[in-house]
């Protein structure tokens, strides 16, 4: 059996009086891509935040690599890409990668090779000496992904990685994610694009802070008796209303 990377058990989270997560239990194993889908405000980002230890859960247990979160040192083994690109515009792509590699604690000797590797994956090798300020939206997104891949982290968390990326590149990125999965990485992805959800190994459907479905796309489609994940999503939302 594959190694368990992330385990959320009966997690509750409130912001003020507003309940964001209600009794969410959810796992992520080595060598799988799990898609987190749900309308905005459903709690996708909050799941990511408690997983990373940015936020503390009010109840339940969160373990990552078998250790209780939040824990600073564990972040070394996690690659994270946020919804916004979060890059330093006045620095070159190389300097951005170098800086975040240093922050991740990649040793100075390994940094050039790591940068080379990450830049190759996102196809930015030729533009690596350019300032990020001159990058197009798609290039920024790719650089942001490259930063998440630095240090070859066993757990990769991507918040809407393909927003604003053209179809060809989106396919390329998903291809790369599948390859990383096959290498044994655990990948957690949130997405709005339903046909992307089909590409995942498992879909976790989140509505109003509750996890209402969590299975392989094909099984969910069968269960809801629909043709694709988009309809699963709509039907689940309809059932709840």
């Amino acid at each position, binding site marked *: 059996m594959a190694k368990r990377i992330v385990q959320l058990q009966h997690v509750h989270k409130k912001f003020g009086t507003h309940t964001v997560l209600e009794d969410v239990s959810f796992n992520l194993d080595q060598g799988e891509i799990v898609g987190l889908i749900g309308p905005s405000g459903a709690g996708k980002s909050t799941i990511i935040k408690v997983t990373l230890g*940015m936020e503390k859960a009010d109840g339940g247990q969160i373990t990552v690599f078998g250790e209780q979160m939040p824990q600073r040192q564990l972040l070394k083994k996690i690659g994270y890409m946020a919804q916004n690109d979060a890059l330093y515009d006045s620095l070159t792509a190389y300097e951005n990668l170098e800086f*975040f590699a*240093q922050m991740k604690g990649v040793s100075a000797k390994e940094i050039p090779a790591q940068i080379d590797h990450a830049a190759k994956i996102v196809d930015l090798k030729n533009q690596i000496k350019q300032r990020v300020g001159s990058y197009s939206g798609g290039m920024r997104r790719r650089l942001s992904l490259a930063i998440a891949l630095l240090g070859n982290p066993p757990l990769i968390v991507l918040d809407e990685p393909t927003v604003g990326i053209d179809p060809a590149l989106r396919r390329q990125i998903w291809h790369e994610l599948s390859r990383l999965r096959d290498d044994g990485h655990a990948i957690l992805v949130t997405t709005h694009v339903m046909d992307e959800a089909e590409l995942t190994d498992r879909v976790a459907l989140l509505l109003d802070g509750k996890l209402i479905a969590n299975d392989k796309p094909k099984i969910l489609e069968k269960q809801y008796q629909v043709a694709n994940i988009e309809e699963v999503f709509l039907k689940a939302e309809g059932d709840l209303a």
Partner: protein
Amino acid sequence: MRIWAITKRVLKQLLRDKRTLALMFIAPLVVLALMSYIFSVNMTSNVTIGTVGVSQTLQKDLNKVQHVKVKAYSSKQKAQTALKNEQVDSTLEKRHNNFYATYANTDSSKTKLAKTALQTVLKQEKMNGLIQQFKQVQQKLPATAAQQQPKTKQTTPKIHNDYRYGNGNSTFFAKLMPILMGFFVFFFVFLISGMALLSERTSGTLERLLVTPVRRSDIIYGYMLSYGLIAVIQTLLIVIFTVTVLNVQVLGSLWLVLLITILLALVALSLGIFTSTFAKSEFQMIQFIPIIVIPQIFFSGIIPLESMANWAQWLADVLPMKYAADALTAVIMKDATFTQIAGDLLALLIFIIVLTAGNIWGLRRYRKV
């Protein structure tokens, strides 16, 4: 070393931002040069007094006073009209052995000058009267008594002026200079560091930074180190410029001046970072200037603090500029030593420690460990 990597990155960003660099290094010099010029302009004002029914001798005496001119008017009405038309700055009327003065009072320095002139002249008149009486009494005295009088020396003693700081031409700018030096460092470091961290918040890089195993304190220390370095360069530029170009004299040690300004820059930096926590945009950061920056200059000692009410002095006590201005003035104008300004330095250090601790704690908003 993560702190050093952050320092290097912040410095790299700053060096590539030419406009901000100009703001930090050139703007203070331009403003200081302008201020120095403005305060060196001859500020002596001339006063014209319109007199009505004032004796010839008194008019003559008034005319003799420096920067004072007298114009005689035949009636009160005429004098008043002249005052209204700004032909004279004040009027003086003698009625029943009393003087009645009216001042335009649009320029308080002119009013002051006219008042002093009047008082001096009236005193002189009184003295002249006394001397006359004394001479008359002397003449009536028997000759023997007159001979017993010791001969008084007629020469008036000469005054030799010596200035401990500056020279006879020192203007208000000299007093302002040490305070302004500190203020510029404070203002620019506060604004730019606050903005820098704010843009890290809004662009999401701060969040991304905190999803690495970096310590929260490493981020704050990295910022302090980089802006500390910038402040050293800024202070050196300001000091060299004021000493060599503006000819401002520094009595005490330049090293102490540097030490004070670096501490002040670190206060400004941590205050800027602290303030940026409460701002959601660059515009909101600007809104803090009137609340946080402007009072610093009011209570920095430009207007002597001792003459202020208790509440104002207490307010000054919690403003870091007060301590820095106090120490800078002491070193630059009075050649104070390290021990003499140790109290001020300690106060600045306490500001730094408290604000830094607050900043490190404040980053918990983004990451709980």
